[in-house]
């Protein structure tokens, strides 16, 4: 018996080792350099300072955080409004059609996400398909400038992250016992009442996990802002990338990353507190 237990502890060893060396190690290192001094040119000088954190309070950088949060909140909200009904309706389909719908949702994952965004460029550009369509219909007189704007970036975020919300909501709604809704209606609840008091509550874990799965990436997907926003929209993600490469200020990038990690960890912690669920719904 004792020997058996030892063997199983041995089984977790590769996982623990890999995680310690290649996940915990780099994260601790990042936290450490966020308190180090930037060496002009390249690298890090190991002299303790809190300057990197104070620098974030600079209005220019605070505005970046604000813009990122604004975009993350508005994309998460839009995705929720768009994705929740989808997951809900999908759960009500017959088994065969559920499977077919799932397949239709998963196939786009095999088209590179950058290429899918490129498809939007084709559609939205000034001489693009949408403008041509609107011109033909006579709805507009000259082409609109749609690309390289805030709405374009928002659209890109919604487009890229929507499937994650749909899949989370669906996995919650699929497990739901619909007879509870019927019971509520039999007891005299209107459909709206039944929805808010039963369905919404039962699918809340899926909805919340969908919100996390969309909110967290939307803080860091710098390439969407890059491609669809031109240089107009600077997000925390773009700032970190810039500081790591061109700006070459690793300690400052690390401080930004620490704050971002803290924010996202806080959100996940709150999620667990609210739902008492330890895993995110919809990931499997």
């Amino acid at each position, binding site marked *: 018996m004792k020997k058996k237990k030892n063997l199983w*502890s041995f089984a*977790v060893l590769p*996982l623990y080792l890999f*995680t310690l060396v290649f996940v915990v190690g780099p994260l601790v290192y990042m936290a450490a350099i966020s308190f180090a001094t930037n060496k002009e040119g390249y690298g890090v000088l190991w002299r303790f300072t809190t300057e990197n954190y104070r620098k974030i309070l600079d209005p220019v950088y605070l505005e970046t955080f604000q813009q990122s949060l604004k975009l993350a909140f508005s994309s998460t909200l839009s995705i929720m409004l768009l994705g929740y009904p989808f997951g809900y309706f999908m759960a009500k389909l017959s088994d065969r059609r559920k499977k077919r719908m799932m397949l239709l949702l998963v196939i786009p994952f095999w*088209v*590179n*996400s950058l290429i899918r965004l490129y498809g939007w460029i084709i559609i939205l550009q000034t001489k693009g*398909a949408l403008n041509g369509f609107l011109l033909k219909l006579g709805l507009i007189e000259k082409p609109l400038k749609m690309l390289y704007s805030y709405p374009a970036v928002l659209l890109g975020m919604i487009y890229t992250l929507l499937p994650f919300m749909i899949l989370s909501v669906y996995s919650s709604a699929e497990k739901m016992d619909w007879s509870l809704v019927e019971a509520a209606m039999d007891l005299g609840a209107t459909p709206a009442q039944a929805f808010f008091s039963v369905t919404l509550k039962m699918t809340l874990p899926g909805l919340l996990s969908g919100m996390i799965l969309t909110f967290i990436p939307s*803080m860091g997907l710098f390439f969407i802002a890059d491609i669809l926003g031109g240089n107009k929209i600077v997000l925390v993600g773009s700032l970190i990338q810039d500081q790591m490469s061109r700006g070459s200020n690793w300690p400052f990038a690390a401080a930004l990353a620490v704050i971002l990690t803290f924010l996202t960890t806080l959100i996940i912690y709150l999620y667990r507190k609210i739902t008492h669920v330890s895993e995110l719904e919809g990931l*499997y």
Partner: protein
Amino acid sequence: MRKKKTRRKIKFSEIYLWLVLLFIYLPIGFVVLYSFNESKSTAVWNGFSLRWYQTLFQDSSILEALKNSLLLGVLSCLAAAAIGTVGAVGLVKAKAKAGGVMEYISTLPIMIPEIILGMVFMAFFSVLHLPFGMVTLVIAHTAFCIPYILMMVRARLAGMDPALEEAAMDLGAAPMRVFFDITLPLVMPAVLSGSLLAFAMSLDDVVISIFVNGPRLNTLPVKVYTQMKFGVTPEINALCTIMLAITLLVLVAYRLAVYKKAD
């Protein structure tokens, strides 16, 4: 009366589902369409042509990037599947005291924004003096592939009947034998679906790769990203159309195989 109402509702829900699907497929449709465009510009349609497919197969840099991406995906999935599967079984069996914390930490790579993972890898690897290239890419991708496999296998193990393993043990099988003969075949579907998801994520990753790929090695998404900054050539459209076609073919083949088995 009631019945009529529900029927109307179902109709609305169907329209909604199709509209959202249209939204999802619309840009993909345009990418496919313009891969057959004679003109280099995406603003005008100059007529049907297979020109870009021809140039694609002569463009060694894109094919090289595709090869790198596939190799990277396979290597990191294999590593992640081995570490993740054995780890998940160990976590469940050993019920280690630190298990909860370690499990949380193991899933961290998909809980924090990719950009942070990318930058910490870049900083950490350069301190370790690891040569940037395939090695660093495989380590980084393995790190974010493990959680997908770990979580799926764990969920599968949770729903498994422990009596099966106990029976094998009672009949005198060594723990190793139990793992390979009983546990592994039972969790295999979870390992496969986790690996498939991880492979898709690896094949699509641009944020982490861009930090650790090094100056000489391109993965396909990194290549596409750099091209997008200077203007995409329709070869990329052609490549994506081919990849989509392969995906669909595999799906159809899989379906046929399943149906055949069912007959």
